[in-house]
């Protein structure tokens, strides 16, 4: 508060005309691709491809959404995505929570080494795991299965999940724990009755991050799930064009809107956590 008041009296007043003009120009440029996606999604086929682009649909229609959803493969694909994402989130959050509890509420030999290992693993390129995982899954028959894809995603998401959850554990004051111990609670009781409920927000945050990572992945699903009925949403979306009619841009943009919507909603929900979360390696490019 105080800070803000003083700032406005300092050299750069807030809300100057020039700053506002630049901000408006920036917003127009930056929002344009999103706007164009939505704009195209609501255009009837005849308006999507015109020599002079229409900046608003003349007769807005839901037919593109209809066409995308009514593709025979859509529900199958959505189902695949939901199962794989759900499995990944569940595993990453439960395993992540236990590990984070160990790494934040206990001191033990090797703790620091484990933390550094987690940081390194988190930064490994996804492609490094792609080849060996593919070979092993090919041998043990996990290619093209939900279980295989879930495992591959957990490998990517778990380190980050641990890292995020650890932050929440650290924030719980140690006095609470000590009080419970004095009252005779065992280590397990402290974990189940006190710590886990207190870090529930952390579970939500890391669930969202895990959801986004698994929901968005294209590379692994594209490599592992080769049959059309194994596709997840991003693979389905990227294969939207048919050789006969060429790319149906209206349908593809409608599909992109459907696919992006949950992620955008989650981003807006966790807006505040985003900056600190991502600098720890969250949502990978």
């Amino acid at each position, binding site marked *: 508060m105080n800070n803000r008041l003083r700032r406005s009296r300092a050299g750069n007043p807030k809300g*100057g005309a020039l700053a506002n003009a630049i*901000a408006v120009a920036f917003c127009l440029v930056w929002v344009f*691709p999103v706007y164009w996606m939505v704009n195209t999604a609501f255009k009837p086929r005849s308006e999507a491809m015109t020599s*002079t682009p229409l900046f608003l649909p003349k007769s807005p229609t839901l037919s593109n959404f209809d066409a995308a959803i009514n593709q025979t493969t859509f529900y199958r694909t959505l189902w695949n995505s939901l199962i794989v994402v759900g499995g990944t989130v569940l595993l990453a959050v439960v395993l992540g929570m236990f590990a984070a509890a160990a790494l934040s509420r206990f001191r033990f030999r090797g703790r620091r080494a484990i933390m550094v290992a987690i940081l*390194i693993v988190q930064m490994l390129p996804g492609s490094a795991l792609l080849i060996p995982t593919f070979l092993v899954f090919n*041998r043990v028959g996990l290619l093209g299965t939900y279980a295989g894809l879930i495992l591959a995603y*957990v490998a990517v998401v778990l380190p980050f999940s641990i890292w995020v959850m650890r932050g929440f554990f650290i924030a719980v004051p140690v006095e609470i724990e000590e009080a419970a111990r004095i009252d005779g609670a065992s280590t397990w009781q402290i974990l189940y009755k006190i710590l886990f409920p207190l870090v529930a927000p952390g579970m939500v945050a890391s669930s969202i991050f895990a959801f986004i990572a698994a*929901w968005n992945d294209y590379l692994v699903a594209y*490599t592992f799930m080769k049959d059309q009925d194994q596709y997840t949403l991003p693979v389905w979306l990227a294969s939207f064009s048919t050789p006969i009619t060429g790319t149906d841009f209206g349908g593809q943009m409608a599909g992109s809107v459907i696919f*992006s919507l949950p992620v955008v909603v989650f981003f807006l929900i966790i807006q505040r956590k985003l900056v600190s979360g991502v600098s720890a390696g969250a949502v990978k490019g």
Partner: protein
Amino acid sequence: MTTQPLAGTSRTSRLRPHAPSRRRPSWAPWWLLSPAGLVMLTVTAAPIVFLIYTSFTDYSQRSLFTGTYHQVGLRQYTALFDDPQFWQALLRSVLFTAAMVAGSIAVGTAVAQLLTRLATAMRLTVTIVLILAWAMPTVASSLVWKWLFQPGYGVVNWLLTQAGVFGDMTNTDWANDPFLAYLSIWLLIVWQAVPFIALTLYAALTQLPLELQEAARLDGAGEFRVWWSVTLPFLRPTLMLVALLSVIWDFNVFNQIWLVSAGGPDSATTTLGIFAYRTAFVAFRIGQGAALSVITTAILVAVTALYIRNLLRSGEDL
């Protein structure tokens, strides 16, 4: 080295506030760690070892079915080092990463600075726009990009033609021109990288003590001078972290290139990642692909080590 007064010694036995004191070693942390540890050993550590092992074999498409392959020692690596395609891909990766990091940090810093000069409503608008661009899954944004830059009906070509600077660009095929393919992918990456950088730097800027700026102004420094001598040094640690993260992320870019240009035209946009993927999963020379992957990973681990060192220095408590 050890000239510190004894004041510190009384503290050495004190544990950090978040760590409850524990007289005897407990097995509890190991029980808690074991499920995650087991999973990470099987899906991360073992594959990495197996990747390195595979890079010393001639694993091929046939091996996928028969399971037979041979040890070839360093032959995959020497073959790569003799292959001009490898060096070109490496060079492309390095230059492209540099261009993307430079672009996104320059724009990101400018936007962060802009945010400090906006009143609440406008700042919120810019933030929401940033989050929209950031939140788009890369598959969706790549498809949108292809549509924006579509020859014939793409809106970017139409806008450029209307601007009239480059003549009639209606049928310019971005994906089929080496430079233009790079340019469009660069724009895509920068578009999605700026939000994180701008918001992170803005968060840092709100911590900037104003007294310093005021003092500099009183001493007669101009706006740019204040920024250069006061703001920039204050931002340096954050900038460093953001730059290292960007290098790691941008070096790894795959989806956007694969979906927008598929590494083409010819192999003009084939970076190391695309080259490795093509080798391993299109040509199915898996042994060689593994060698490429090992090299890429080694480069990234080196950058990551820098990142972690910085993280530790910036006071992150492990």
